[in-house]
Every structure is written in C-alpha cells, then in structure tokens.
C-alpha cells in the first residue's frame, strides 16, 4: 500500500509541475502580455494588474522569479520560502527580482503593435484628453490674458462673506422688536423654493402646509387643527391660499389637484383637476381661483360652475412659483423659474386668448417673490432667486422699473406693509434674515434675524401688525414688526377728525 501512496504523491507533484491548461495565467505572463498597454498609462495598470497586496507578498517571500516558463503559480506558492537568502545574495527580499526580470525580458520583446492595441491607445487618448490628438488641434488667441482690474474682488465673494445687507441703512424712526414675538414648530416643512406653504386668513387662521398635511393655527386662541392629510404619503401639499373673507381654503397638491376646503365643516367641497403637474402657486380674484403649475401654465378656475377650468395662460416655459392678483383685481402677476415676470389682464384680448400685457425679463433668477402695492394699484414688487438677488419695483402700466436694489441674497418672499410705507422681504443664504425696506427710497430700515435656514414664505396678519415667516429650519416665527405706535395712532385719528371738520366747514 505504501508504494501506492508514494506513487500518487509523485503523480500529483508531476501534475503540479506541468502547465495547467485551464488555470489563469501566471502573473509574469499577464504582465508581459499587457506590457504595451502599461506604457500608455502606468498608474491605471499598476492599480489594476498588480494590486499592492501581491507586490508585498513577492517582497516578503523573497523567492527568485521562476526561470522555467511552464511553472505555475500554485507550485511557486508551495515551495517553502528561503528566508535569509543564500551566501551570494544575503538579502534577496530587498531586491525586486520579478520586476527586474520583467523589465529585462520586456526590453527584448519586439514592440510590434496589433491594430487592436492601436485602437485601444486611441480610446485611452480620447478618454484622457477628451479628443483625439491626431484629429484635432487646440488653438488659442495669443497674448496675455485680460485680467480684471487690480484689487477687484469677486462680487460673489463679497456676497457670501458679507456682514449685513447693503443699501444705506436708515435709523428706524420707530421701535421694531428684533426678536420674534412667537416661535412655532413646523416639523417636516418642505424646503422647496418653488412652493407656497403658508397663508393667513382674515379670520386670523394661519394655514400651514407641512409635507402631506395642512394645519390651521388660530392666532387668537392658539388652537391647532389638522384640516387635511393626503391619502398617499408620497404626495404633498404644494400651495395654500385663503379665499378672501370667508372660511374657504384652496390647496394645491403635488399630484396636480386643486382642492377647495370648507374650514368650518372641515370638508372638501371640490377637487379640481386640470393641471398635469404639481400646483405650486394659487391666487384668488373673487370667485376665480388662479393656479400656477410646474408645467408653466396658469389656469383660471371658476369655483362656482361645474366646468371650473375657464382659461389657460401660457406665458411661462418653466414652473410658476409666484402668483398674485392685484388688490383691485385688474391684473395678475406671475413669476416663474424661467426668470420672467408676466402681467396678465383679467379679461382676454380680442383673439379670445390671454396674452400678457407686460413681460419683464430683467430678473436673472427664478421669481418667487411677487407682491402688489396696497396703496398704488399699478405698483408691483418682485424678487429674484439666488442667481439674481434683486428686488425690483415696477409700474405695470408703463412697464418701467421704478427701482431696483441688490439684496445680496436669494429673495424668497416680499410683502408690503399696510400700516407703513415699507416692504418686508425674506431671504436665504447667508443670513436667512428678514429685511424691512423704506418705500420708495428702498433704504434698509432694519433686519430681523433668527432663522437658521432660508426663509420660505411670509404671511401678514389681517391687522397688518404681525408678519409670519416660515423657514427651512422647521420653525414659524411671528414678528410684530409693523405695530402701530399708540401715540401716532391717536394723533392720526385726531388729524382725521380735524380734517373731516375742515372739509365740513369748507362745504358749508
């Protein structure tokens, strides 16, 4: 029996010595084969073909590179390594024998390149250089490059490292509290510039859309009511807007619906489907509800009739994010992601199609902040996004830009005060502040800071004293920034009474 075992052993050794037909190529074989390629790009080849691990092993085992080409790698690993070397070369581990032998053998090899290799090299050149050296040349107009004047600093750098909003600041003539009156949590509010998520009703209810639900917060009592929640949790509320005067709330959703809710009954009255994409902006003009969609279309819905979709305004090529009817109901202002502001008439032209009476192209960013002046019916304020950062005041009748101011920050929302000749704007990076501006000079009255992420929307209380700001830091802050000073209020009333009597006298 013993001799059979010996014979088997012998056989297996012989088998090991013979080249294995199906086995992967030995390392030196692979190296030699890919040699041509490695010259075009060494870094990639070394990383792919000889990973660090393999290289380390060949160092430590201090084996001599095999001279017999037939020997397989398996056999090499089987041989016990001779640590310490021999008497001629005491430390073989310090020498990269296989690398040396590879370089020696490779040098003798003919460098004939096959057509496929040429092709491969060309492909490498194209991917590395982006073009084929043999088919193109790169030209530039000679001479020195034209540099910006000495001392010029990138205005964007100024923007992002600035300390305060520019514009000559005016000392406030009245007291404006710098801290918010109240801070409310707004968990899961969507940080999406293109949505309009809060609105304050004349009944002092603040409607807030938090992801897939709409909550109503009563400013007077502090009660919170969950009005509605989307059935599908992947859908979300994209806009809310109160019907003037009464307790009806219009809700735009991500699945392109416009819903009408009765708040007292907590019931949905209508579900109006006409858009094909999410509805990010809503505005009421009596019984006409206008809705702007991601498609760039604005639809008018007559909420009283069954065929609610009465008109389509197509003047934008991208998502409508700002939409406001003028207080007198004559014009609709729309701002969109295509950087345009369109002013639409309330009735269509002769061709039975709505065409904008004005189109303002001056903004260099998406226009979300759109607000009409409450005391001058043809004055509109608009604010642009990150790439624009300007607030512009327009006369929509003449189409002229009355004033513009660089706010150095994304303008997310604008409101006009009803008590003072002032505007308030909400901003994004870097200060996330609210700024109060004097109209028409557009000097800065004050800044309200506190939000730690960009302000998304602003809403004003029905009495015009308080402004609510919703921000991406998941808070709602209420600022009592337009409160009427009791002394001036009294004086004003007195003046009104006295002026009345003067009129009476003059009539007599």
């Amino acid at each position: 029996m013993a001799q059979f075992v010996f014979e088997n052993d012998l056989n297996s050794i012989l088998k090991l010595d013979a080249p294995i037909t199906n086995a992967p190529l030995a390392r030196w074989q692979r190296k030699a084969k890919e040699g041509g390629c490695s010259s075009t790009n060494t870094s990639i080849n070394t990383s792919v073909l000889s990973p660090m691990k393999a290289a380390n092993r060949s160092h430590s085992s201090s084996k001599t590179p095999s001279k017999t080409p037939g020997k397989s790698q398996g056999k090499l690993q089987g041989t016990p390594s001779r640590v310490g070397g021999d008497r001629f070369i005491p430390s073989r581990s310090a020498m990269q024998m296989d690398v040396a032998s590879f370089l020696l053998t490779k040098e003798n090899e003919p460098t004939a390149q096959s057509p496929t290799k040429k092709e491969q090299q060309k492909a490498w050149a194209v991917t590395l250089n982006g073009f084929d050296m043999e088919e193109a040349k790169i030209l530039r107009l000679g001479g020195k490059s034209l540099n910006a004047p000495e001392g010029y600093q990138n205005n964007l750098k100024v923007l992002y490292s600035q300390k305060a909003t520019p514009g000559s600041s005016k000392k406030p003539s009245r007291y404006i509290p710098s801290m918010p009156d109240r801070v409310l949590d707004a968990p899961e509010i969507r940080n999406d510039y293109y949505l309009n998520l809060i609105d304050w009703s004349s009944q002092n209810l603040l409607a807030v859309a938090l992801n897939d639900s709409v909550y109503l917060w009563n400013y007077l009592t502090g009660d919170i009511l969950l009005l509605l929640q989307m059935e599908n949790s992947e859908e979300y509320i994209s806009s809310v807007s109160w019907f003037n005067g009464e307790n009806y709330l219009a809700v735009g959703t991500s699945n392109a619906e416009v819903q009408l809710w009765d708040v007292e009954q907590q019931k949905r009255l209508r579900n109006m489907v006409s858009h094909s994409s999410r509805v990010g902006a809503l505005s009421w003009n009596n019984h006409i509800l206008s809705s702007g969609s991601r498609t760039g279309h604005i639809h008018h819905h007559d909420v009283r009739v069954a065929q609610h979709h009465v008109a389509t305004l197509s003047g934008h090529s991208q998502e409508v994010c700002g939409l406001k009817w003028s207080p007198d109901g004559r014009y609709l202002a729309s701002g969109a992601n295509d950087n345009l502001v369109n002013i639409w008439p309330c009735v269509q032209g002769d061709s039975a199609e709505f065409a904008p009476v004005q189109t303002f192209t001056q903004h260099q960013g998406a226009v979300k902040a759109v607000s009409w002046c409450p005391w001058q019916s043809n004055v509109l304020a608009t604010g642009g996004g990150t790439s624009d950062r300007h607030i512009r005041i327009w006369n929509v009748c003449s189409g002229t830009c009355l004033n513009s101011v660089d706010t150095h920050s994304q303008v997310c929302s604008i409101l006009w005060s009803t008590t003072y000749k002032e505007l308030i704007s909400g901003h994004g990076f870097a200060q996330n502040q609210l700024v109060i501006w004097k109209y028409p000079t557009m000097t800065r009255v004050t800044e309200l800071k506190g939000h730690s992420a960009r302000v998304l929307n602003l809403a004003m209380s029905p009495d015009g004293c308080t402004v609510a700001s919703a921000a991406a830091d998941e808070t709602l802050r209420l600022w009592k920034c337009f409160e009427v000073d009791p002394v001036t209020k009294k004086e004003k009333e007195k003046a009104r009474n006295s002026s009345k009597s003067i009129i009476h006298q003059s009539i007599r």
Partner: protein
Amino acid sequence: MAGQLTREGITLKGSAEIVSEFFFFGINSILYQRGIYPPETFTRAQKYGLTLLVSTDPDLKNYLNTVVEQLKDWLYKCQVQKLVVVITSIDSNEILERWQFDIECDKTVKDDSVVREKSPKVIQEEIRSVIRQITATVTFLPLLEEACAFDLLIYTDKDLQVPEKWEESGPQFVSNSEEVRLRSFTTTIHKVNSMVAYKKIDS
C-alpha cells in the same frame, strides 16, 4: 443678423452666424455670472427675449469680437470641434472651471445653396434655455474665491492653417473635477452640446 432671423430656413452662413452670436452672449454671461470681471463693467442687452449682460470693457470686447469673428469663419468652413472657456486662478495658475461646448458640424453642407427647414424661433427658444442654464449654474458651482482669468480654446481640424496671432495649446483640464451636462441646441447644420466641469470640493 436680424435679417437672418426673419428668413425661414437655415443656410450654412446663417447657422454660423447664429452659433457664433450664441458664443458671444454665452461667454459674456459666463464672465458676468462667475464674477470674473466687475459687474459694473457690464451693460444690459436684450437678446433671445432675455435680458443679458454684455461687457463694456474695450479690451475685453475687442478680444471677444476677434475670437468670435474667427470662430464664425471656421464654423462656416465646418472646421471647429469644440470651444472651451477655461477659468484659472491668477495666483496659483490652477484651472478651476472649464466650460466645454462641443460643436458637431454637418460636413455634408458645403455652401449656402442648402437650406434647412428649422424655424429661427425654435432655435432661439433652444438657445434661450441654454443661456438660462448658464445663469442658473451659479447656484451649484463652487465660489471662485481668488481672482481669476479666463482663456478661450478652440479645437479645430488637424489640417487647419493656424492663423496669425493664434497658437497651439494643451487641453487644460480641471484636475479632480465634477461635470454637469447642460442643454444643447441645434441649427440642423451645427449642433452645440454644453457642459461644465468644476473642481470638486473636498468634504
């Protein structure tokens, strides 16, 4: 140029003009939006139904006009492959940003006798969205903190005679870059694909 736009159909000459004009406004927009030059040296111009900003610096204007005129000639001969705007830091000479416009020429069109059917209005609409995208990129491109210079590279056919004052250059890539493809437009004779590569911010 205005007459070109009112005519229906596109000839090779008209196409070269539209494309070179796009580059003039496109490069100006990049220079303004990226803050390479002071914003007060730019003036507003109405183009493509947009308000665009164009430099008023006489040297810069002269330079751009020279390049664009030469480009128009090459576009007419269908010898251009790419136009690249390279933005480099002046201090470190490091390449920070690279706007690449690949131009595909239809070489079958040899002279003005060929008229392609494409409404100039549609082309203008396409160009408008490319320019808008250039404007919108400031929202994601990293801030250019140091003073920067720009260079224009034009990739041409190999057999082209290098004109006077022009010299050959390397491709000038951004190392460790991130790339964003932008929209493209076509006049049916020339097709322009745009892309911007910028230095990845280590995080």
